[in-house]
Each structure stands twice: as structure tokens, then as C-alpha cells.
């Protein structure tokens, strides 16, 4: 019974993975990737790891892929065009890598078989929430904490990148003396504070708006 389920879900995972790579439409690729995640979660359940399965669905299928689909919908990404293949020389390398991967898998299978190790049965409690929690907060506390600091850094980094005041694009030209900047762009106070300030040159305007711009090509680095 569990063998049958494994074949079903493994087939689903592999099929979805192939579909993900082969699809030209990015949204179809994203949907196929969700299929892969859900099939993998089902395999985790049959391997007596329900916690990993639930987390897989919540984090990957439920959170990350929603964001991916959100971005695809927001940008309205068109179907990818067929371009001339510039990276054709990588095909032999890919075949070689695949061969190494298959050989590794075969070696692992062989060595497990040869060692005669017994897999934990479906009644094992290794994959249950309690044992995972105990291990995370005792034996693996340091890696766990480091990971959380890493995630925090990623969040702070994303915030600081998004917060940069790039109001003018690098190709924008401002007519000197003509532009009037709203005060709240320069000094962020209230939305109602719209005191106009006058600038003489593009550089001055760019400087006030916090944009890294230099009109004189010789002064550019």
C-alpha cells in the first residue's frame, strides 16, 4: 500500500518537475512547482514525518509560491519567447552532472542495502512535533539560532533596499531652474507640508532628492 502511494506521489513530483522546466508560461511553471511541493509533502507523510510535510505545505506551497504567483500576476509576465540557444555548450556538462547524481544515488542505495540498516517504521516518533521541537532547542540550538539571525538579516536587508529614495531614474533630465520640488520629498515631514524649494541645477535637485546623479560626465566615477 505504501509502495503504491510512493510510486503515485513520486510520479506526480517528477512529472510536475519536468512540466515546471518545460513550460514556457511562467505561471504554469509556478503551478507545476506547487505540484512538486505538495507531492513531496505527501511523500514525507508516508515516511512518517508529518511535521516536515505540514511545514513544507505551509512555507513553500502556501507562502513562498503565493508571493511568486502574486509577482507574476502583478507584472503580467508574458509568455517567454524562444531565443537562440547561446548556452548550448552547457548540455554535455549537464549530462555529466546528471550521470554523477545518478551514480551517487545508486551508491547510497547500494551502501544502505549492503549495511542492512533498518529504516524507521511508520510508528517511529522521529518525525513528530515533540521530538523535532526537543531536538531543535537542545542538540541543534546553535544552528537554529544562527538561521533565525540570518533570516532577520535578510528581512532588514530587504527593507533597507526597498527604502532607498530613488525617486529619479538615472536617465531623467531636470531643466535647471525650472523644477520646483515638493518639500516633503526632500525633508520627510508631513504629507500636508508642500513648501516649494527652488533649485538651480539638476545636480542640486538630485542631491536634495537623495539620488546618486552627476550630470558632468567627467566628474562621474
Amino acid at each position, binding site marked *: 500500500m505504501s509502495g503504491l502511494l510512493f510510486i503515485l506521489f513520486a510520479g506526480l513530483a517528477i512529472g510536475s518537475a519536468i512540466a515546471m522546466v518545460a513550460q514556457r508560461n511562467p*505561471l504554469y511553471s509556478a*503551478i507545476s512547482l506547487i505540484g512538486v511541493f505538495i507531492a513531496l509533502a505527501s511523500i514525507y507523510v508516508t515516511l512518517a514525518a508529518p511535521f516536515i510535510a505540514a511545514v513544507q505545505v505551509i512555507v513553500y506551497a502556501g507562502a513562498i509560491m*503565493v508571493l511568486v*504567483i502574486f509577482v507574476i500576476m*502583478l507584472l503580467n509576465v508574458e509568455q517567454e519567447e524562444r531565443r537562440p540557444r547561446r548556452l548550448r555548450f552547457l548540455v554535455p556538462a549537464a549530462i555529466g552532472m546528471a550521470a554523477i547524481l545518478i551514480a551517487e544515488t545508486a551508491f547510497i542505495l547500494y551502501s544502505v542495502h549492503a549495511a542492512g540498516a533498518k529504516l524507521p517504521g511508520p510508528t517511529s516518533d522521529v518525525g513528530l512535533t515533540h521530538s523535532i521541537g526537543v531536538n531543535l532547542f537542545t542538540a541543534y540550538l546553535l544552528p537554529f539560532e544562527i538561521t533565525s539571525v540570518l533570516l532577520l538579516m535578510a528581512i532588514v536587508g530587504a527593507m533597507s533596499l526597498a527604502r532607498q529614495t530613488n525617486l529619479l531614474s538615472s536617465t531623467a533630465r531636470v531643466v535647471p531652474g525650472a523644477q520646483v520640488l515638493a518639500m516633503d520629498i526632500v525633508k520627510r515631514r508631513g504629507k500636508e507640508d508642500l513648501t516649494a524649494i527652488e533649485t538651480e541645477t539638476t545636480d542640486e535637485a538630485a542631491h536634495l532628492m537623495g539620488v546618486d546623479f552627476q550630470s558632468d560626465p567627467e566628474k562621474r566615477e
Partner: protein
Amino acid sequence: MDLSNPYIHAGLIIVAITIAFLTIMLLVAATVLAERRVLAFMQGRVGPNRVGYGGVLQPFADFIKTMMKEDLVPDQSTRFVFLLAPMIAVVTAIMAIIVYPFGPTITLPFLNWTFPLVIARFDVALLYVLGVTSVGVYGIALAGWSSNNKYSLLGGLRSAAQMISYELALGLSLIGVVLLSGTLDIYSIVEQQSGWYGSRWNIIYQPLSFILYLIAAIAETNRVPFDLPEAETELVAGFHTEYSSIKFLLFFNAEYINMITVSMLATTLFLGGWNVPFAEYLFGRGTLLFGIVCVLGFFAKILFFLFLYIWLRGTLPRFRFDQLMDFGWKFLMPVAILNIILTATVVFVMGSQ
């Protein structure tokens, strides 16, 4: 008959799923009718009262009428995704019901069969519910995208943003209860609340968490005052503008099933699930009568939440989208985290129950 035989066990589970499915579907029909009648009462109208006694057959008449409509697929739509979206919505909505215990473990008289009134009981039941709910976003988001209609797309985008934002607050608000009970198994969480003659409900310990959950749950189900994905004054009908006939019906059902499952989660986690105060004393633990009383109590609590939903719809105006986002991220999230810190401190000092 040996109930531990795997084939008999599988058969019993299929029977249980069928019963639960039919119950939920009837509850959906009842909620649709109740919503129309109660709203009409609140707005000084009469509401549907012609089909059957007091209008009880109105949902079934509507069902037949909607089924008979032409099943349209827009010409420029992405056909496969367009057909897939309502299925995802309704399947993920109904998958959650298997973990909710409708009643306690009972023993049938004469036959001496003992079984719990729950379909599936496993270690990560609460995470399963959250996972299934989070996959449900795709139904709405993909429907909005595949319709190739600007109103649908806006509705889909809004709902995706809204559900991601409020899922966080929803999940964080549940952690207080998990910290107290020390398990993710919903059946065990309900059993732990049967102290004090069946009135040791988690809401006594976690009132803040309960309020946060209730708000986030209303936003998760896209109901008033958080119904921006289908704001009819702005977006026609939002993500299901292009859907007709049975596909519209699936979305409609999914919304009401979501309401019911969210109410079930609120009941099981905060209001003691099937626990009815003093029922154990009056009828004795594990008897059939006790089971019936508990199931009725469980459904009474669900109906209370459904009434609350309708009541809110009759009372509150809709949020603006930036208000919605500010409220979710800048109010609900910090308060939920504060609640977690408080609960964790108390549990650490007092020791878990």
C-alpha cells in the same frame, strides 16, 4: 465486529467522511438561507419566505437555478487554469473538516463499539489546517488571473495580498493556545478543555488570542468588513466576475465552507469544542446520549459564530485597502507577538498544565 481490522476501519472512515460532507453541505444551505433571512430582518425587509415553510427550500431552488445557467468560459481566458481555480478553492476548503472532532469518544449501546467522533486524528492536525487554508489562496488568485478581466485580476491580487497578510496574524494568534496545551493535535486540545465539568475553555486563558483569531479569520474568509476581493461597488464581483453556473456555485460553496471550518476551529480551540458544561455529570461519560448532547453543543457553538458573521455583515462598512493592510501588519501582528511573549512567560513561570 473487529473495528481495528484495516478494511473495516477504512470503510468506517469513508462512512464518516460521507456523513461529515453531507452535514457540511446542509449547513452551507442553512447558512445561505439564514444569512438572507437575518440580513433582511436587520434591514427591515422580509427576505425569501415563499419556497417551502418559511423559505427553507430556497437554497435548493437557487442551487437548481444556478446549475441550469449557461456555463461560460471567456474567449481570451487561460482555459486550464480557469477550470482548475474553482476546484482548488472548494477542495482545499472542504479538506480541513477531517480533523475537527464533532464529539467525544462514545460507546454504542448493545453493540459495544467504542470510537471517537472524529475522522482523522494525527500529530500535526493544527498545522494541517493552516496548510490547507494557505493553499486555498490559489483558487482565488488563479481565478482572478485566468479570467483575463481587469476586475477579476484586481480582485485576485487584493485577495492574495490580504490572505498572505492575515494568515500571519491568524497563525500567530493560535500559538498562545498551542503553548498552553503543549500539542498540535486538535482532539487532544479539545479533551484538555473538559476540566471544570466541561467548562475549562481556552478562551478564559487566551481572550486576546481569541479576539485576534476572530478578526484574522473574518479577513481570511473574505467576509465583510474585509470583503475587498469581491467589493461589488468597485470590482463588479471581484475574482469570480467571469464565472457562471456550476463554477460560480463552487466558489460560492467554498466561501461558506470556509466560514464553517473557520468557526469550527474557533470552537475547538477556544470554546471547548464539543464540551458542554455538566453534560458529563448528567449523562455519564461515553454514553450515546452524552455523545448526542456534545455534538449538539458543538454545532450550537458553530451556529453562534455563523450568526456573528451575518451580524457583522449587517453592521459594519467595508475597509479601505490601505487601512486593511495597516490594520493587519501594524496592529494585529504586533499584538499577536505580544500575546505570544506574555503566554510563553506565564507558561515558563507556572509550568504547563
